[in-house]
Each structure stands twice: as structure tokens, then as C-alpha cells.
């Protein structure tokens, strides 16, 4: 097959330069976030050692020295940035035997696994649900899907979490359906089921809704009409001609979905007592553990920026009309 030489290379070349440009734009954003976060935490009343029982002055002095709290603010800021570049998020204020980097290294893989599982569930359950509903509009099948989707969107994850714990952890405790009410244990499947389900429910619902809507629109297009008029079997028309258009809004959604999954993890990990970064963030915020909070925030922001970038590139792959030289 003859590739139209220059044409192909040109487009791919443009894509790489677009990628580079986006990455470059992401860095200042990240930097702004770091800075705002830093000064926000340091400039407000109350410190990390205030809430507990009064600390003897010598210990307090030691702590302050260790965390450089006596240095001028600018100095703290710059040294923080310097450490960041080397991958060091600083020591945790609360868990004094650990550095934030260690805590994140422990917690991140767990949250990542759960988050990815939730996204995968969202796509592999949500899309078929939405598509099947769209193909038989206004049928009982369609109404069921819409109702289920609505439920997933509306019931908050902490309510759902508690209900599921009640059902599977308490009521069904002595049956074969029992599931642990919390904790991570050895990370075995039993401990993952409930948290991942609770985490993924709103996303399954949103994806189902989105793909239903876009599938309905795709089936109405003129080109799907042409495909049908050509005598192609219905399945081919749906999978080869309509599906792509139906999928693009779902892909677009994955970008903001990452952000929502991160916040969802906070709830899920807290309820189910899972040692992931979501829970660390919540604890950190409540304990005024500056470095921990900043570490997780920065990581999350970086993730979101990266994910948005990936989504944009993916979008370009799916839609041949997208031009990379226009952004």
C-alpha cells in the first residue's frame, strides 16, 4: 500500500511538536500550583504542632529546626523547590519516621491500581451499557440503563460505600458473599472488590450516559445512513462506522475523570481504610502535615496534566480531521 509519504510524516511530526509544546505548558502550571500551595499553607494561622498537647520547649525548638520553620519564608520556599527537583518531597510532619517520598511511594501504587481498575470498569461496562441502550431507544432496556446510570451519578460514594459495607460486611458476614469491611490486608482480591466498585460506580454511570447520547447522535448521521444503504450488516454499521464517533466524547471525558477519581479515592480510602495517597491527603490536611499535603497535591496535579495531554493526543489519533498546528 502506497503511503502518501510527506503527508504522513508531516502529520506525525506535527503531533510530536504538539506534545512537546503541551508538556512545556504544563510545567509552569505545575509551578504555579506548587507556589500557591506552599504559601497558602505557610501563611495561615496555626501550625502543625499546635493541635496536640503542649510540647516541651526544647523538643519544639528541635522540631522547628529540623523542619526549617525558623528560616525565612523565601529560603524555605527555594530549598523546597530545589529538593523537589531531586524528587524529595521533604519529611512528613506527622509521621515523623517517614519522608513524604516514602509515604507516597507506598501509597501511590495502591491508589493507582484502584483508580485504573475503576476507569477500566467504567469503560468496559459503561460503554456497552450506553451503546445497547442507544440502539433500542425508549425500550425497557433503555429506561433501565438510564435509571441505573442516574442512580450511579446521584448516590454519593460515601453513602454507597457505607451501604455496601453494611450489606457485605455485616449482614452477609457469615455467608459466602461476605467481604471484608475494610483494610487492605495483603492486597488480595477480596479487599479490592468493594472499594473499586464504589469508586467506579459514578464513572460507569457517566460513561454509560455519554456513550448513549453520542451513539444516538452517531446513528442519526448521514454517513451511517449511507452505510446502511450499502447493505452492510447492522453489526458492521455499528462497530465500524458509528462506534468511533460515539467513543470520542468518552475519551474526552477521561481527562477530567482522572481528577474526579483522585477525589473519589479520598472518600473510598477513608471509608475502607486503605493506605493510599487519598487517605494520606485527608489525614495530612486534618493534621496540617504541610509536606504531605503538598506532595500529594503536586503529584495529583501532575497526573491530571499528563492525563489531559494523553487524552488530547488520543483524540487526534481517533479523528483524522484534527490538526496539530492550530493549537
Amino acid at each position, binding site marked *: 500500500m*502506497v*503511503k*502518501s509519504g510527506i503527508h504522513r510524516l508531516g502529520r506525525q511530526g506535527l503531533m510530536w511538536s504538539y506534545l512537546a509544546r503541551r508538556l512545556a505548558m504544563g510545567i509552569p502550571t505545575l509551578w504555579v500550583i506548587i507556589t500557591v500551595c506552599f504559601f497558602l499553607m505557610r501563611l495561615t494561622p496555626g501550625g502543625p504542632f499546635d493541635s496536640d498537647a503542649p510540647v516541651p520547649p526544647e523538643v519544639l525548638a528541635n522540631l522547628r529546626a529540623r523542619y526549617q520553620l525558623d528560616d525565612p519564608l523565601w529560603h524555605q520556599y527555594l530549598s523546597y523547590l530545589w529538593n523537589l527537583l531531586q524528587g524529595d518531597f521533604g519529611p512528613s510532619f506527622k509521621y515523623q519516621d517517614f519522608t513524604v517520598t516514602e509515604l507516597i511511594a507506598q501509597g501511590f501504587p495502591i491508589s493507582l491500581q484502584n483508580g485504573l481498575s475503576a476507569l477500566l470498569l467504567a469503560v468496559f461496562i459503561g460503554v456497552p451499557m450506553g451503546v445497547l441502550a442507544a440502539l433500542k431507544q425508549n425500550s425497557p432496556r433503555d429506561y433501565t440503563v438510564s435509571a441505573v446510570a442516574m442512580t450511579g451519578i446521584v448516590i454519593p460514594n460515601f453513602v454507597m460505600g457505607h451501604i455496601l459495607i453494611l450489606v457485605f460486611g455485616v449482614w452477609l458476614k457469615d455467608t459466602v458473599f461476605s467481604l471484608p469491611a475494610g483494610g487492605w490486608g495483603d492486597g488480595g482480591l477480596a479487599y479490592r472488590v468493594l472499594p473499586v466498585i464504589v469508586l467506579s460506580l459514578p464513572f460507569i454511570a457517566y460513561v454509560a450516559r455519554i456513550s448513549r447520547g453520542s451513539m444516538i447522535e452517531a446513528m442519526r448521521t*448521514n454517513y451511517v*445512513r*449511507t452505510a446502511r*444503504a*450499502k*447493505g452492510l450488516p447492522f453489526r458492521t454499521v455499528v462497530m465500524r462506522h458509528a462506534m468511533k464517533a460515539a467513543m470520542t466524547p468518552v475519551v474526552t471525558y477521561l481527562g477530567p475523570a482522572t481528577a474526579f477519581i483522585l477525589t473519589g479515592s479520598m472518600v473510598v480510602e477513608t471509608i475502607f481504610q486503605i493506605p493510599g495517597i487519598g487517605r494520606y491527603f485527608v489525614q495530612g490536611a486534618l493534621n496540617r502535615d504541610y509536606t504531605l499535603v503538598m506532595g500529594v497535591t503536586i503529584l495529583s496535579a501532575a497526573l491530571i496534566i499528563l492525563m489531559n495531554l494523553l487524552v488530547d493526543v488520543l483524540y487526534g489519533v481517533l*479523528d483524522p480531521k484534527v490538526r496539530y498546528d492550530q493549537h
Partner: protein
Amino acid sequence: MISVPSSPVLEIKNLSVQFATPEGEVQAVSDVSLSVNKGECLGIVGESGSGKSQTFMAALGLLAENGTAQGEVLLNGVDLLKAGERKLTAIRGNKIALIFQDPMTSLTPHMRVGRQLTEVLMRHRGLNATEARDGAIAMLKRVQIPEPERRFIMYPHELSGGLRQRVMIAMALLCGPDMVIADEPTTALDVTVQAQILDLIREVQDTLDTAVVLITHDLGVVAGLADRVAVMYAGRIVEQGGVRDIFYRPNHPYTRGLLECTPSLDQVQTGKLLTIPGQPPDLQNLPPGCAFHPRCVHSSERCLAERPVLSAASHNGQKACFLSEGQVSP
């Protein structure tokens, strides 16, 4: 063109089509009967909403979800309205092909043009990828697309409107269909390109002896290409006949109105453009009697009370009107 009557490829008998909408039922097509012979070109003329497209969408089982059809549609003796979906998909694109109005939106944007052609051949003729590719490129040449190999791997948005329409035509002809239905094939194109496409259609018809149904609102298109014409209004046929007969001796006031509305270069300049007065018909609230009477200059009380059925016209065709030709075109 063909003086010897040949057997009809497609026969539509008493076809009616309705759509169920939240505001009530809309009768899009009422009791339409027509036939198309091998090698002839039948023009269907009417405004938007006259039912001209839906007649043929119904014939091929391509109505929207809320549409229903009754009557008979015979393709070589087989009633398509009663045929199952399997049979219909075997016929579409194969024995009967469609060409749609807007080439901009009628081709799948994310698939290469070549693929959209080869999938037809692979589906209906069981060819493999290489054979299909050869067949497709040959057809692209046939419809006079320059550099077909290059165009083969392009996406639709990389082609011009005229080229896209040629691709649509090529797609329709790939399996050598007995009949091609062209629904407003030139409406979305520039005037110069229009002429080229029409020439192409005529050439195809001549060489392949395909029956062609040309659906349009443009009388000029019909005049150049059609052998016979059916004029539709509010879902019914109001006049049918040979193209010259219709044009020179229209028997129905609507036909006459359409002809008069089309400005021509040698017309006497009166300073005003002629129109047919009134509003297009509301298909949910059709007036009793003749659907055209609210806009008809010659209407009488009989037109209000009774709906005219198709009867013999002064030419060899039919008309649905109580008036005689003399009264319509004095």
C-alpha cells in the same frame, strides 16, 4: 429514449408511510404507485416534505424508528416490504443502490475512502482485500476521478465536494445494481459541478442500462435527464407522464405552477418573480379534499369536498385533478 416498453425493475403499489411523533401521526406518503423500467430514468419532483425521499427509504426498509409503511414494493417480483432484514441488506448496495444528497456528510469521516468502497465489494461479492482494491480503483477511474490510487487512501475531508459525490456514485455502481436511486444528487454542489455529475449519471445509465430514479426539486435537472416524471405533493402523486408531456402540457395546477416559477433567460421581464401562493402543506392537518386547493388559483367547491384520484391526463400519463388541461393551461 426507449420506445419499447420493458419489464419494470421496481414496482411500487399503494405505498403509504406514517411517522409517529409526540405531536401525533404524520402521514408522509399516501397511496403512491409507480414503476421504473430497465434502462429508463424516472424523475420524482416535489418540494421538501412532499414525501419523495421517504417513498424510497420505505421501499428499502431504511425508515426511521418511528416510521411504518404499508403497501407493496416489488423488486423483480419479490415484495421488499415483507422481506426480512437479512434479505434487505443483501439487496441494498447490491441490486438497488442509493446516492445521497450531501456528500460532505454522507461519507464516514474517519474511514479512508478506499475502505468505504472495498467493504461493499467484500460484503456483496466476497472478494478479498486485494481484489476489492483493484475493483474499487477501476470504478474510481470509471467515474473519472483523476489519480485514483492517491484518492483511494485519502479521507473524505481531503476531497472536494464534486469528487466526493463521484465517490458516492462509484460506491453505488460497484456491484452493478439493477437500479440506482439518486436523492438530490446535485443540490449541495456548485452549478458547474452539477452539470458534470449529471453528465456522469447519464453516461452510466446509457452504458450500464441501469434504471435510475432521480429525486429532486429542480426542474432543470429533470428536464435534462429524465424519461418520465412523477410530480408529488403532500405525499401523493399529482401528475405522472413522459417528461416532454409534463413540461409542455402540464395537466395539474401545481405542475404548471412549478414550471412557471422557474425563471428562464428568454422570459419576458415583468419585474416580479412568480411564486405559488400560500404555505406548504401541514402534513398533520391536511385540508379535506384536494391537498393543493388552498393554494390553487382554479380551485372550486368540488376541490374542497372531494379528493381527486389519479385519472387519465390529456397526455399519456395521469393527473389527480378535476380540471382538464385546457382549464389549467389556457
